[in-house]
């Protein structure tokens, strides 16, 4: 069975699926990613599917599961590079991939993750300010 490599770039794990995956390969990727998220503490996962000429319900479900697992492990997943014909087919198949963030390419996916991370930090900072204000008032 072939295996899909998981690359770490800064705070992001990048997966580019370049092969026609057997179901078992997709499940292995799911496990590998969960392990790498925990091992590296990365907060973002980008899955590039620009080389895939089809996404069937099994791969679609695996992508959704990866996104859910990542979220539980404090990482956001963005699926990038979906071909137009794949998008049309997926929707007609009945799979709209709810809960999956998408971007047109890797670059935009990285921007999306950076923006989200920033927004999260801002929220945290606001909460800290609020806590301090309460402390100051008491």
């Amino acid at each position, binding site marked *: 069975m072939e295996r899909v490599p998981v690359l770490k770039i800064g705070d992001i794990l990048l997966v580019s699926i370049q092969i*026609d*995956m*057997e*179901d*078992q390969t997709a499940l292995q990727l799911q496990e590998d990613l969960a392990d790498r998220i925990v091992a590296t503490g990365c907060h973002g996962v980008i899955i590039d599917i620009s080389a895939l*000429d*089809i*996404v*069937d*319900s*099994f791969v*679609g*479900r695996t992508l959704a599961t990866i996104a859910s697992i990542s979220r539980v492990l404090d990482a956001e997943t963005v699926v990038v590079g979906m*071909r*137009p*014909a*794949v998008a*049309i*087919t997926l929707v*007609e*198949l*009945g*799979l709209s991939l709810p809960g999956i963030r998408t971007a047109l390419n890797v670059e935009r996916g990285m921007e999306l993750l950076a923006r989200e991370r920033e927004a999260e930090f801002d929220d945290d900072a606001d909460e800290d300010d609020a806590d301090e204000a309460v402390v100051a008032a008491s």
Partner: protein
Amino acid sequence: MTAGDDIAAKETLAIRSDQDVVRVRQLVRTLAVSVKLSLVDQTKLVTAASELARNTLVYGGGGTVVAGRVDNGRRSGIRIVFSDNGPGIPDLDLALTDGYTTGGGLGLGLSGARRLVDEFDIDTAVGQGTTISVIKWCR
């Protein structure tokens, strides 16, 4: 008529493993390109074939696929026939309902595949097996 008699230059593959599902996708892709289906139609047909091949493996316990070119005098297309000697489908209407599954999947395989092709015929008998034939015509 035996399933697939009208298919020209038909190819047959056994479906017994995950790898065979990948082989079915590759075969159907090659055939779809050979009759010049549009890119979207190629994608739809290969996706439908992937769903049905997986069903043959998971629910039918394995089986065979026969695929090739068909012509109806006006248009050409690709016909694919999946057969297994598995348990059959007791309630076909239910099995064709979006979201219904007995196998822990999303329940989109059969119903979704039907939407992706132009013709979809299913012949099933409990205890004997299931044969599904699909056609995608060139536009």
